[in-house]
Structure formats: structure tokens, C-alpha cells
């Protein structure tokens, strides 16, 4: 049995509910099995869902191959983004510089296709050998009359959150030239990546209320719709960790206000839809939002009651990427009559943790950037029945004999909106009440 003592450096990152907060937003400790990824990963996951863009990864092959078609972002249009483009840097490129190879790679893309939009991601090594990626992109734009946008994402230059920010910078440089457009009633959806088609659900709700969706960042987005984003009257920020920065930029530069919303769980979905209508300030929209949400909730109620019995009093643990999702999940578990015993995030911010510590009781453990040793210790100590997390947490949960639901890239069904409540409830029930648990622990 390995010691599950907590590293001294990690102690301040672990706390309990009831108002006290934890340290966060710092670099991971050397030698810990961190569940976090890097700056490049953050930038790539944010931008990759743009369906008709060429995402060229400037670096050795690994950076592109590990991120090839991993997000589960669905497209209603092109599937170009599901290919993997890389400069596959070799030793010679490292010695003599990779800028020239990047230029040729762009030339080859142009020769083969007629791209309108290229993103060039600078990885760790490009940051060290100091290729002038910006100059290469600028020259390509002049030579071919297309948009070629550098994404400064060397892995060592911060953590995944910093990568989100670099992606937001890239998006701003994309849409900035289109800033002078007339406004019209409509919203942009920020921080929805159309996993399992969730954008289509939210778009349907908003349109049913009478609110047009202009651009989506970045799920199911394409060049043409992104360039219309400056027309919007309001920005809706869902994945706050990745997209608040973009929303602030758009507010500063284009004067588009933003509100944070969440479509996870019945309560948050309803509250968000009404808040959106209120923010747009149109009495008839507010009225329609109220009646729409009442109708949806009424339809959902019998479903929730039917499933509640099998789930009530089960203990849930949450370990997800951002703080906002964790907050929605706590509310969702409360609504199901379940108790949240652990809440952790990989990139949560101080204000997220403050809210989390208010939402949960004093017996709930709160963790920032937890490693498997810590997760294991607290999952056992708190007697959790279910873990909600991502790809690296799933097998850990199973090995500990816990039910699991993927709330990340590998989600099987849409988890957003009222449909999402149904899917989420069914899925955790499926895992919690699988017959496989009855075979655990016994011998032949």
C-alpha cells in the first residue's frame, strides 16, 4: 500500500465546505501525478471545434497526434477539423529553425485546398527555438489572401487556463477586423463545444423563446458565422474558465455585454434562460422565457420523481475541469437528493471555490488540481458511490469500485438542458445500479 499522505506543498490546495476557500490557479507540483494538461492543450481544445479551419500544429508529431479528433465536438457542416495537420518537426528543423518548414507546410495546404482560415499552434519547442510564427502567418495572409492566425501555446508557458486565454486572443484577432457591423437582436454562445450536439439543444431553446443565435464559440462554428459575432447584442458565457476572457475582450472592444450561464441541471437551465431574456431587456422575451421554462420543467417533473428513489442519498464526488461546471453539478445532485462529498477542479478560480464552499456542507472535501492519490484517499474516506470526471478519472473510479459518468470529452449523450437532465440521470443510474457491482469483491 503506498502512503496516501498529502504532499506538504499540496496541503493548502485541499479544504472543506462551509465558507473556507482553497489555493488554486498555480502550477502543478513536480512529481505529482497531475490530471492536468498543458497550454497547447488548452488552446487546441478551445479552437479545434471550428469546423472549416486548418489547425496546423507546429512542433514534433506528438502534440498533433494526441489531440487528433479527441473532442467529441459535432459539426453540422464540414469535417475538416477532424483531420490532423502538423509540421512534424525533425532534428534538422530544430537545429536550423522550423519557420521555413512552416511556410512550406502552409504553401502545401494552399496548393491542395483553398483555405479561408488557418490556425498555427506554436508548441513547447517552437517557443524555445524561437521561430517567428507571427511573421510566417503574416506573410501567408499577404501572399494568399486568407486568415492565418498564430496561437502562442508553448506547453511550459503556463497551465491549461493560459492556453484558453491564448485561444481567446486568436479568436479576437480573427474577428477584430469585422467589428464594425450593425447590431441586431441575437446572442453569441461562448464556451460550448457542441459535445454530443449540446449546442443544437440550447439553440433550439433560445430560438423557441425568440432569441436568435448568431455565432457559437466554438462548437459547430465556421469562419462565416464567427465573423458575424460582432453583430450580437449579448454574449452568453457557458464554460467560464475558457471563455470569460474572450467575453471581456468583446465587451471592451465591441461593447457587447456578457452574462455567465449554465445549462447543466434543471435549475440552472431555467435560471439561465430567464436571465438571458432579462439581460436582453425585452418584456415579451421574458414572458416567453418564463412560459417556455415552466412548460419544460412541468414535462421533466414526473421523470425526476420516477428516478429519484433509486438515486436519493447516494454520495457523489465531482472532479471536473472548471469551477462553473462543478457548481452546476452540485446543484444538480442536490436536486436529485444526492449528497456531494467531494468537489475538485483542475482549473477553478478563487471565486468559483468561494461559491463552491458556500454550496456544500462542512463535511465536503474541496480540492484543486488533485492527484489520484488524493482522489483515492478522499473517495474512500467519504464513501462516495459515484464519481463524475473525465477520461483519466474513469478507470480510477472503476478500480475503486465506484460508478462513473464522463462529463468531459467522452460524454456519450448530451448533458445540457432539460434533455441533458434526462440523459445524465439515466446514465448515472445505469452505472450506479449495474449488476456488475454484485460480482465485486467476491471470489469464485
Amino acid at each position, binding site marked *: 500500500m*503506498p*502512503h*496516501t499522505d498529502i*504532499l506538504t506543498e499540496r496541503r493548502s490546495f485541499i479544504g472543506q465546505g462551509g465558507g473556507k476557500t482553497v489555493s488554486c490557479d498555480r*502550477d*502543478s*507540483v*513536480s*512529481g*505529482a501525478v*497531475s490530471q492536468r*494538461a*498543458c497550454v497547447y*492543450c488548452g488552446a487546441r481544445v478551445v479552437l479545434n471545434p471550428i469546423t472549416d479551419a486548418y489547425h*496546423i500544429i507546429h*512542433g*514534433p*508529431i*506528438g502534440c*498533433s497526434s*494526441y489531440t*487528433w479528433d479527441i473532442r467529441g465536438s459535432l459539426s453540422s457542416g464540414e*469535417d*475538416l477539423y*477532424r*483531420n*490532423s*495537420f*502538423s*509540421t*512534424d*518537426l*525533425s*532534428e534538422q528543423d*530544430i537545429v536550423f529553425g522550423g519557420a521555413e*518548414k*512552416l*511556410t*512550406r507546410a502552409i504553401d*502545401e*495546404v494552399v496548393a491542395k*485546398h483553398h483555405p479561408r482560415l488557418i490556425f498555427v499552434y506554436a508548441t*513547447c*519547442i517552437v517557443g*524555445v527555438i524561437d521561430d517567428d510564427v507571427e511573421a510566417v502567418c503574416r506573410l501567408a495572409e499577404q501572399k494568399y489572401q486568407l486568415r492565418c492566425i498564430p496561437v502562442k501555446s508553448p*506547453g*511550459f508557458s*503556463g497551465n491549461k487556463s493560459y492556453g484558453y486565454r491564448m485561444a481567446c486572443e486568436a479568436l479576437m484577432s480573427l474577428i477584430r477586423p469585422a467589428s464594425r457591423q450593425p447590431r441586431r437582436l441575437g446572442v453569441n454562445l461562448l464556451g460550448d463545444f457542441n459535445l454530443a450536439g449540446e449546442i443544437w439543444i440550447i439553440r433550439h431553446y433560445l430560438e423557441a423563446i425568440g432569441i436568435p443565435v448568431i455565432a457559437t464559440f466554438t462548437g459547430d462554428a465556421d469562419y462565416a458565422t464567427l465573423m458575424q459575432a460582432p453583430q450580437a447584442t449579448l454574449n452568453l458565457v457557458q464554460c467560464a474558465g475558457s471563455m470569460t476572457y474572450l467575453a471581456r475582450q468583446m465587451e471592451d472592444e465591441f461593447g457587447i455585454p456578457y452574462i455567465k450561464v449554465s445549462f447543466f441541471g434543471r435549475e440552472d437551465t431555467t435560471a439561465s434562460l430567464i436571465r438571458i431574456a432579462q439581460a436582453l431587456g425585452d418584456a415579451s422575451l421574458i414572458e416567453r422565457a418564463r412560459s417556455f421554462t415552466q412548460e419544460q420543467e412541468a414535462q421533466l417533473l414526473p421523470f425526476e420523481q420516477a428516478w429519484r428513489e433509486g438515486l436519493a442519498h447516494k454520495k457523489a464526488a465531482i472532479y471536473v475541469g472548471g469551477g462553473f461546471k462543478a457548481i452546476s453539478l452540485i446543484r444538480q445532485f442536490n436536486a436529485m437528493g444526492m449528497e456531494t462529498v467531494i468537489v475538485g477542479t483542475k482549473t477553478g478560480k478563487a471565486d468559483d471555490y468561494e461559491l463552491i464552499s458556500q454550496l456544500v456542507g462542512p463535511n465536503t472535501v474541496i480540492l484543486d488540481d488533485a492527484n489520484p492519490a488524493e482522489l*483515492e484517499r478522499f473517495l474512500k474516506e467519504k464513501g462516495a458511490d459515484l464519481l463524475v470526471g473525465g*477520461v*483519466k478519472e*474513469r*478507470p*480510477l473510479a*472503476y*478500480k*475503486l*469500485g465506484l460508478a462513473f459518468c464522463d462529463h468531459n470529452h467522452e460524454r456519450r449523450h448530451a448533458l445540457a438542458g432539460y434533455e441533458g437532465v434526462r440523459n445524465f440521470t439515466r446514465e448515472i443510474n445505469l452505472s450506479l445500479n449495474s449488476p456488475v457491482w454484485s460480482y*465485486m*469483491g467476491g471470489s469464485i
Partner: protein
Amino acid sequence: MLDATPKTQIKREALRINSCKTCQPVGALYAALGVHRCMPYSNGSQGCVAYHRTVLTRHYKDPMMAVSSSFTEGASVFGGKSNLTTGVKNVFDIYQPDIIAVHTTCLSEVIGDDLKAFIQDLDIPEGKYVVHCNTPSFKGSHINGYASMMGGFINYLSQKTGQSNGKLAVFPAWSEPSDLRLLKSYLEQMGIAYTLFPDQSGVVDAPMTDHFEYFPKGGTTIEEIRGLGDCTQVLGLGEWTIPEPCAALEKKCATPSTILPYPIGIQNTDRLLMTLTDLTGKPVPYAIEEERGQLIDLILDQHIWTSQKSCAIFGDPDFILGVTSLVLEMGMFPKYVLTGTPGHAFPKMCQALFEAYGVEDQCQAFEFDDLFDLHQFIKNDPVDLLIGTNYGKQIALAEGIPFVRAGWPVLDRYGHYLWPNIGYRGAMRFVERISGAIMDHVDAVCPDEDFDVVM
């Protein structure tokens, strides 16, 4: 799917599209998982190891433990020594492995970290070990990283005492845990004393035990790696990958080696068993001969469905050389055999196989290539079947051809790592899946009147 792939091929030199390889460090990490109570350690920023753990977890559906130095801006300017020192101390303190296997990344290679010197200066707890290898991501592929990590363990640990331990050392190329289990069962059935290195079985395919183990039961022990220098002989399985670790052991301990093709297919398995007999004098038991007979029987039973069919095979060099050999034995044409791993030896080895079956005019082999090219080859001159990693599924869908998943990685299916590819049993599984895929395709596209329960 893959609508952007045009039929017309344009020469590419700088742009890699849909690669058929990944970088060295993940190979080093996988090799290190084949050592008992070993913590793989990536000296670089934390993204690399997060990716490696993710891809391995998605393939094996088990938790994969590995750590990193978590380089930040400071380390990339001042070097990674302080991160490594802290990291190693933390790993021994909290996870308590017996050994840490450090590999480098493109970042630590370019900033010039001298791992050997760093490790010499470490304060390593009594009875524990730290080894390393260099895995620059901008050279070779994950396969080179795997070989390099084997060399790292050997260079640090293996010793020649002058007294033989009477064991046969077996060095497999990158293998699924199921294949390592099968290999061990052959050795055990023949009563041969052996050290299998590395051995990921029992680590990446650990059973459900109700409690989580950082270091499951499996893996070659440090004692066994130390004893490699006293083994009578090395039997290497994989002509592409294994010469490097064999050379490392020969240099250090003068242990001789015999290297065979990776044992997929009839002849490759025959050669493995005959060589085992030659080296040890132990006969092949009837139970194994019986399996061979069953395999031949199966190939015969289904041969009208697979003979003369063409296929494309892609993946890692040793693995697909074995698959190529098997499909040739089945009377198929491996029209395109493609690896992303660079190395001129690969097409030559394929060529020798093509010539042995007189199909060199119909078949081509490619190294350092990618799946975009493969897709274009298929668009221009189609095949009846595609065999390779999960990244073939999009091509198979786009071109409407049957597809058999094989090799690493296969992220989109469960349980494959429990069933062998090598040996007669592995070949039986291949034949069943290949003929099944071809026949499923016939069922799916044939007119109603041809749809029959008897096939």
C-alpha cells in the same frame, strides 16, 4: 467523413496529415510500465505526460500512472535540474515505487538537460533506483522511444557476474499484455527458464480486485533486469525494434542474441518455437502443435473468402510486418503496407516478404508516411480490406471497405488487449476477424436474394 481528401495527390514535404506515428516519450513510458513497481517520469512540461496517460488509458481502459517534472517558464530558461530533483523526491515520498524511469521530452532535449549528471547528483533512497533514457520527440517515433527505454534500464541495471543464471532472456517489441501472457505460456509449457523484459501484463490489464493499486502485480523485476547480463542468450522478437536493446546488453554484458520477426502468422510462430527448441533443447509440446493444426484447418475452411483479396495494412513496423506475413499466408495481397515510423529497413523487410510470395508487382511498402497518403492510395486503387489502428475507421467509412482493428492504439473498442495477436491462437483470432469483416461486408451490401444463412 474525410471529405477533404482529394483523389489527386500533390507532393508534400513539410506538411504531415493524419500521422501514423506519435512521439518517442509515450513509447518510453509504455516500456517503463513493463517493469515491476516502476514509476515512469517525463522530464518536461506536464502536457506531455497527460497526453500519454490519456492515450494509454483510452487504449487499455485502466489507470496509467506516470509523473512529470512540470516544467514552467523558469525551467525552460534555467534547465530542469531543480524540477527533476524535487520531482524525484516527491515521487519516492508519496508513491513509493522501487524505481523511477525518467525519459526526456523535446523541451528538455532542446534546453540541453544532462540527465546523466542530474541523476548522479540525486539523493536516492537506499535500495531504490533512478534510470533514464533520451527520447527526443523530433526523432523517430514512439517505437524508438520504447527501444530506448529498454536500453536505459539495461545500461543502468544489467550486470554480468560471470555466473550464468541459466535463463533465456526474451525481448519483445511493443506488445499487448495478451501477447506477453501467450509468450509466457509457450515458455512455461516448454519448461524454459526465462526473463521476459519488459512485461506489461498484469500492469495494464490488471484484474478488478476491489482496491486500487498504484503498482499492480505485473512487470519485470529489478532483480530480473539486473540478471539479464547472466542470461545464456537473448531471444529478440521484432527485427525492427529489438536490435537496439540487444546491442545495449551485448555491449554491457556480452550476452549474445538471436532476433526473429515478431511472431504473428504461421511461419513467424513456427520460427519462434523452433528457435526455442534449438536454443534450449526443449521440444514443442503437443498442445501447441495441436493449435497449429487448428489454425491451418481454419485458414483452409475460410480460404475462398480471403484468397486473392487485397488489403492495406498500417501501424508500427514489427507488428505490421507480422500481419503482412500472415495475410500472405492466407493468400491475400497486402497492396499497401505503411508505417509512420521512419527507417529504410522497413520497406526492405516488406519487399523480402512480397518477393517470397511473388507479389512484389502488386504490393508496395512505405515508411515515414501518413494516413492521408494511404487514403489517397486507396482512393486511386482500392483494396478489399483495411487493417490498422482505430484511425483507419474514418478511411474505411469514407471508402466503404471492411476494417479490422489491430495494433496500437485502438481507442474505440473494449477488450482487445485481452486477446492475443501472436502465436497460433493470435493468428486464429486474426483469421476469424479478417474473414468475418469481409463476410459482414458481403452481407451488408449484397442484394436480398443473395443474403444467405449459409456462407
